[in-house]
């Protein structure tokens, strides 16, 4: 198993809603506790695009419509590089806007279509009324655990064939929908902010384990004391799922 992972956090200065950058803090923290080196590099507008294949994980957070418009042209410029990295096994961790922009397109409330990278088949349409938003705490049953987050998105994402999990509380990919997010072995895409990893250490550890096992010799990660994280999540599960 590898002893270090390299992460590229794209557009962290622009796409950072609801503590999304905190996900990087959680990854670094959980690696640090285990003596794993976790190097997080940044890339944003105007910077020089590094060789993406060098990275074990690429992370893109969520932003407001305006910010998404600003970065979309630049992101398209990175299309081939991201695609190549993804096909080479780099993990893609995508929240909200980052999730949407990897699909075919995102059509905003004014009808402007922002082309996506088309890595995946799904597409996203925001309703004409800006008031219609999916704003809620959310509980999703994933294969890792019942996870908790906070969603706030206008966009309705359709055409997802392999969701991250089943919605137990909240909206998910569309208003009041059954499923949330998008999942592949090396992709977690979700609307969950919070930040997503803060209360859901299983997701963080899955990604860390995946990245370290890329050399072909995966091993279980050392257990950490997650008492606070698990209690934190349990408080929300008890509150939201209470019938």
């Amino acid at each position, binding site marked *: 198993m590898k002893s270090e992972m390299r992460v590229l956090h794209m557009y962290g*200065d*622009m796409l*950072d*809603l*609801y*503590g999304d*950058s*905190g996900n990087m*803090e*959680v990854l670094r*923290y959980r690696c640090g506790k285990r003596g794993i080196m976790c190097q997080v590099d940044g890339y944003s*507008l*105007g910077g020089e695009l590094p060789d993406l294949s060098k990275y074990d994980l690429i992370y893109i957070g969520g932003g*407001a*419509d*305006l*910010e998404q418009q*600003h970065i979309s042209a630049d992101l398209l410029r990175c299309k081939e590089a991201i695609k190549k990295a993804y096909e080479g096994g780099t993990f893609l961790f995508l929240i909200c806007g980052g999730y949407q922009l990897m699909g075919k397109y995102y059509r905003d409330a004014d009808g402007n279509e922002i082309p996506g990278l088309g890595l995946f088949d799904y597409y996203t349409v925001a309703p004409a009324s*800006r*008031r219609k*938003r999916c*704003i*809620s*705490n959310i509980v999703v049953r994933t294969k890792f655990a019942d996870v908790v987050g*906070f969603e*706030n998105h206008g966009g309705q994402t359709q055409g997802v064939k392999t969701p991250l999990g089943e919605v137990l509380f909240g909206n998910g990919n569309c208003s009041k929908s059954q499923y949330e997010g998008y999942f592949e072995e090396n992709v977690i895409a979700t609307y969950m*902010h*919070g*930040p997503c990893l*803060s*209360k859901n250490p299983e997701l963080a550890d899955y990604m860390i384990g995946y990245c370290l096992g890329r050399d072909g010799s995966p091993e279980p990660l050392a257990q950490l*004391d997650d008492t*606070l*994280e698990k*209690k*934190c999540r349990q*408080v929300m599960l008890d509150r939201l799922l209470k019938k």
Partner: protein
Amino acid sequence: MNRILIFIGKAIVGVLRLLGRNAGNLPGIILWHLTRGRCCKMFKVDCPIIAVTGTNGKTSVTNCVAQLFKQSGKTIIINKEGNNLDTGICSLLLRYCDGAGRVKADYLILETDESHVPVVYSQLKLETLIVLNFFRDQLDRNGEMETLIQKINGFCKTFEGNLILNGDDPNTARLGRANPNNKNVRYFRAEPYAFATKEIFEASEGRFCPFCGEALEYDFYQYSHIGRFHCPKCSFGDYQPYVTASKIDLEKPVFTVEGHEYSPKLNSIYNVYNMTAVAAAAKLYGIKQEVTDKVISKYTVNNGRMENFLLGDRKTTLNLAKNPVGANMTLRVMNEMNGEKELLFVLNDNVADGLDVSWIWDINFSIFERVTRVVTSGTRAYDIAVRIKCSGYDQEKIVVRPDLDKAVEELAKTPGRKFVIANYTAVQPTRSALKRYIAKHGGEQIEK
């Protein structure tokens, strides 16, 4: 029709009074329904209206501007904190109007919620709008930041009254371009203070020019995204300031505006900006220097904003933090202080707080210095505990006590200096818990 509505409204206020209840928002809410959302339209206000809006500091600036006029011998009407939506303002005017809806005073000074500025002032004629700042605050209630700014910008496009804007906040300064025909746009700003930085220190909004999309350049940041900015491409940010705060020394604390030195009671850069906005209003309305001086030097707050208590003999400072900027300011004050200290952080997620608590991840906890223990409390006590833990703080030193009384007992158990940060709905219960502790174990609330 108006008379009937006013009659109904006044009747509700009267009944509530008879029941011994404060009228609050309820009459406004009922009239809002009766008027299909145009509940402020039925009033006839002949005097000038001055509105104060922005994310942080509304209450302070509204109170001070009101004092400027009051101490100049004018009759004023002012709304209390919390009643700053259209329904709250409607309830307020119901109390003061006559049967025909006529409101008599020299000035109306109204704290107005950011998202309600266009709603209220499409119904009431506004003379002056003071815009303090726009930060991430309860985003889930207001929708995204940009939507909020767009709403107010839309209002400003046709507004020809006085616009007093924070020129060091690109989010508010941009409103100055909304109506090119408005000759009454004025900016206030401040020279860098001792803790201003060259690099941005805390997560923030508005890093890009709203007009051309270019990254904004900063000479300095005071806090968050507040500082001297300009757009290298389209010259956004080049304006002639109306008033500038200079020679800021928060140790004393003093600052100078228009050659006059002020000695405020509160020692934060926040307060300097708020009081500079007050000084701008005073200049605009020709308030006498001695009145402005008195208002700015006397102003203090006792609603959980830097309040001091003695828990037994432990000096304790309570501060409200509704958003990362407020919390970061408290952490800075805490850090700039020598010696060991302990922190109690009370975090709620009630409706008025905004259901989401992820803003705590925009607080920079890695700067903790000589913080020997952290107690967390509130409905989201564990969220803030996890947040602080992941910033690298030793989790053995974090104690979670969701029950507030138990949290205060825990905090006061050890000797030394204490700080308490509480968010919006947590601050009053926290004050009460501190007072209960004092009643039981001794101590006092210290007046500034």
